[in-house]
């Protein structure tokens, strides 16, 4: 369905690419990278005009869903700047940022957005030149990647929206929120945590939550069967069914009893099914 829609757009609306200028948003931490960007100006290092900067107190304030919101709105690239590791004004903020950006990248991958559209850089207050290089390089990279398809492709829009929803689930927030401390300070049993195992756990959780969010996204528009969802999402149908089992359990989706042998499901907003 999304495909069809997409082709229709091509015929009518799509303007030639040459007029396109990348829209880039940058989030900079107050203490290092924002200061670095200021120094860049003081030093008159030039960089392309595309980027719009947003100041935050610490890079760790940039929640995954903020980034995903921006992509959902159609931005072509996002740059996050923070202090170098161990230099954070708030001690360990940027370590958390690092973990969150990993999650964002995982989710972007799920949504089909090139990871190159998101960049995390450590820029200190004294690295004005580095800031200009980073922005220039990043902008050129985005130009090569071309415009984001989120606004023209319904399926991609649904996917980014799903990634946004997934990023806000308690499960992913909890895992990613705890990740740095677990790795640096050990777990509740006082044991050292195996980084690879933890990454594995988060990978699985990210994929699960994304797929579940996408199912809800798609089945919100119209009732869909497991097979339809499998085809549209390119996920094996047995896995889709397993997600639906859980979503029904949590009263997120309801079965509409079929005429024939293929049940369809519709996302529900409130309450449970009978």
């Amino acid at each position, binding site marked *: 369905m999304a495909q069809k829609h997409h082709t229709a757009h091509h015929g009518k609306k799509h303007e030639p690419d040459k007029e396109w200028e990348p829209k880039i948003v940058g989030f900079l931490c107050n203490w290092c990278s924002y200061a670095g960007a200021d120094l860049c100006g003081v030093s008159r290092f030039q960089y392309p005009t595309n980027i719009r900067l947003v100041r935050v107190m610490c890079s760790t304030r940039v929640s995954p869903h903020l980034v995903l919101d921006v992509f959902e709105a159609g931005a072509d690239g996002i740059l996050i700047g923070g202090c170098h590791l161990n230099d954070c004004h708030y001690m360990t903020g940027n370590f958390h940022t690092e973990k969150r950006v990993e999650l964002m990248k995982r989710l972007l991958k799920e949504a089909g957005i090139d990871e190159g559209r998101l960049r995390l850089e450590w820029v200190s207050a004294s690295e004005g030149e580095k800031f200009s290089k980073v922005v220039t390089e990043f902008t050129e990279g985005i130009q090569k990647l071309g415009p984001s398809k989120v606004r023209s492709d319904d399926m991609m829009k649904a996917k980014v929206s799903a990634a946004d929803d997934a990023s806000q689930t308690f499960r992913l927030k909890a*895992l990613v929120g705890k990740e740095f401390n677990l790795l640096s300070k050990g*777990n*509740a*049993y006082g044991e050292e945590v195996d980084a690879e195992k933890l990454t594995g756990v988060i990978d699985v959780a990210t994929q699960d939550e994304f797929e579940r969010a996408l199912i809800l996204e798609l089945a919100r528009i119209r009732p869909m069967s497991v097979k339809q969802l499998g085809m549209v999402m390119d996920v094996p149908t047995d896995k889709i069914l397993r997600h639906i089992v859980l979503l029904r359990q949590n009263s997120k989706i309801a079965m509409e009893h079929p005429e024939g*042998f*293929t*049940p369809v499901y519709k996302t529900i907003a409130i*309450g*449970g099914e009978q």
Partner: protein
Amino acid sequence: MAATDKVGAVMVVGGGISGLQSALDLADSGFKVYLVEKQPSIGGTMAQLDKTFPTNDCAMCIMAPKLVSTGRHHNISLVTNADIMSVDGQAGDFTVTVKQRALRVDPAKCTGCGSCAQTCPIETSDEYNENTKVRKAIYVRYPQAVPLVYSIDKDKCIGCGICAEECKAKAVVYDQEESTSEIKVGSIILSPGFDEFDARMKGEYGYGVYKNVVTSIEFERMLSATGPYFGTVLRPSDGDIPEKIAFIQCVGSRDEQVGNEYCSGVCCMYSIKEAIIAKEHGGDIKPKVFFMDMRAFGKEFDEYYNRAQNEYGIEFVRSRVASVFEDPETKNLVVKYVEKGEPKEEEFGLVVLAVGLKPPQDAEALSKVMGFDLNTDGFCRTTVFDPVSSSKQGVFVSGAFSSPKDIPMTVAEASGAAAKAATEIASARDSLVTMKEYPEELDITGQEPRIGVFVCHCGINIGGVVNVPSVAEYARTLPNVAYAEENLYTCSQDTQEKIKEMIKEHELNRVVVASCTPRTHEPLFQNTIKEAGLNSYLFEMANIRDQCSWIHMHEAPAATKKAKDLVRMAVAKARLLEPLENLTIDVNQQALVIGGGATGMIAALEMAKQGVKVHLVEKEKELGGNLRKLHYLPSGEDPTEHADALAKEVMSNDNITVHTGTGVKNIDGYVGNFKTALDSGEEIEHGVVILAVGGQEYKPEGEYLYGENPNVLTLLEFKEKLKKDEAKGDSYVFIQCVGSREEGHPNCSRVCCTGTMTAAIKVKEKNPEAKVYVLYRDIRTYGFREAYYKDAAEKGVTFIRFEDDVKPKVEDKGGKLQVTVTDEDTDKEVVLTSDYLVLASGTRPYPESEALAPMLKVPMTKEGFFLEAHMKLRPVDFATEGVYLAGLSHGPKFLDESIGQGLAAVARAMTVLSKKTLEAEGIVASLDETLCDGCGICVPTCEYKALEIIVDKKDETKKLVDVNVGLCKGCGACVGACPSGALTQKGFKDEQIVAMIDAALEGLLGKQEVKQ
């Protein structure tokens, strides 16, 4: 009790339905019980089942009351998440070392609210749902789990710490360590259950490779409303409803290839059940069952099988499936099989493998630790005459651990094992049980109601939705509410203390708790107020969690309003509550056993050994019953010798009075107080009755030349001749199902197939050259009896199957018998000449049963067998208390099964006989004599026979109904029936119910003031 060197406690190993039954029987008859369970919660396999055959009862619905009773029984200690490490000592005085793996949750603090599992970020596959769903790393096995204590799966937990942060009760203890304890017990009962056969070992069926090939237990979860698909059957591959489902029987049973030659005994029935339920869930589904022999051998099982075919249109194909292949495109499955010699293929949407039962994984370890023997198949070894004892003295066994079996047989054995375990330590009865002491009850007569209301947050379960402070605030404004408060957990130990303090401080005389469901928590709070001196019936609950916050999670204001309404209703009822009395009835501690066959003798002996005076009544001159008619047992023992030995033991036991050659003339009375008159003129007073009246072999009428030709004999007649060496010949034909599984007698007689094997093997042993033919419909040698079938076949016995509706023909051809039969496999007519024709004729009840039933007010099946209280979970009880049944008068069964039931009846009877008085229910019917005119309309509505029309003692011209509170269970059926309003139900009076409704409707009924 006299001094004894025995320990008055029993350890039950395994907390499935078997362990629950043993534990409850023992704890109710004066013994302390330690119930040890591997899993963090009890319930076993039955807790996983959707429905049960042949009644299609919901498994959890019938099991939950037993789970709850076990969980809160003051004489049962649950030792969960535990393994047996070692056993020292001997029968009567064992010391068992038990290791309890760390739950990592403090059971004393955990309230089971579940907030931890909601937030745990780790998902893993849910074993309870056979991996068709996910659970969290902190979890309970199933929602109704007992004990309702969460535990951490350390293998899956990453130690993120979120559950501990979430737990308001501070119950999570990450560093909790395993603990080892030594427990002293006098007897041990093993009920560890079974494991399912691993279907991967049958590679040809593609389990584990093809997504749409599932096992029967997985399918059970798929059918369940609490399972992954909410009860709609879906294909795991793509979520479609399968149009056609194939059930493949005997996967891992009756299969030399995989090393399991025995029959698992339950799969035929559970597959029929699953096919029926699948069909009920979706009318368009077409189930087809591929089987070898349909083993529907239990009580009314064949009728169930017939209904599956005739009413539900389920197809049955007699064939062992060769292999299953998947269409990679559609994921449909092609089933390849041979029917009547022709190879066939058929495509299905889903394949269900009926996996067999095998011994539990730890069987061998257990046998080594405890020192009992396993049989060659790895199950616990038992004997025919002692079916619930292991080879180690003082160690007993029940359920599937001794042989694959269904739930009713398991429950009967569980009670039977309890009886044996109790006998071992009978001298120590009541030595370790505790009686709770309560303060004297406060007299509240004439007091204005002063109600205390306690509103629970249940962590965030209620508080996260309902505005609990505002509910408590509202409660304070209600009339007669003297005190109200909110609690984080009203059920926690410290809150119980608080409730008691508040009762004293505010002179409360009624208590209302607004929290979860009375079904699980009412007894806890009732106990609390009783400890504070209030009558336990001065309590009412408002269910603001299960029926409010949990179902209106997204509608906080509306949920809060509803919670207030529910509290207002509870307070309205509480205002009218009255103290109720649990009356006690005296118990005559003697027993009456009717029937002196193997079952009756063993039951009498077992009770006598526990010190009970028993009257044993036998209509014949001699004790022994059918045991004297068997002559051979398949296992080799001599039944006649056993009959003599048992009779001698009974006759010489001082506690048993034997009344032979007399029937029962009349029985009067009720539990604890029966009076029986015998035909001989003797009168007996007793507290319980065990019916073991037996059954008889059907004598064919006008069939197969029986009665016309002297060489046409019934199976028992033939065995007698064989024993006397009077049945010599060269050829023998056996015909099965004579008088069974036909018009008028639709059910299977269960024992005839195996009896035939025994006789056929004996014939072959005596004369290996003899030609022996068995003409049959299905061979039903279930369980380990399959070995006799195999033995017979190996000895050269020929088996010919005939169609159900085309019976063989028998003619007398000049001295020789000629039998003509159409062989179903080849469709060809086979003509056999034989010296003897043996008719395996069915089991019928004695006519005496019919005379006894009305005396004891117990029901019967249409075939004339006694009908137990519940086919699944109360196999030897009647709804009428104090009356029990066992053996052939319950239905056809083998000797070991009859003995098991006889022992079971003893355990059930001892729950009454071990007490001097019985406590009746508090919530019972009560009568206003001035209104009753003795019309008797209420009498037939009482399932428990508690009502009787009597002559009014004050006015002999008037009739009255008499309510026997000893028998009344407090359902209220009679109250609803009473036309004059004379009957009412204590605790649920009209005005109490009306007050609640009125409060709900905010005074619309106009009966009461409601303050908003």
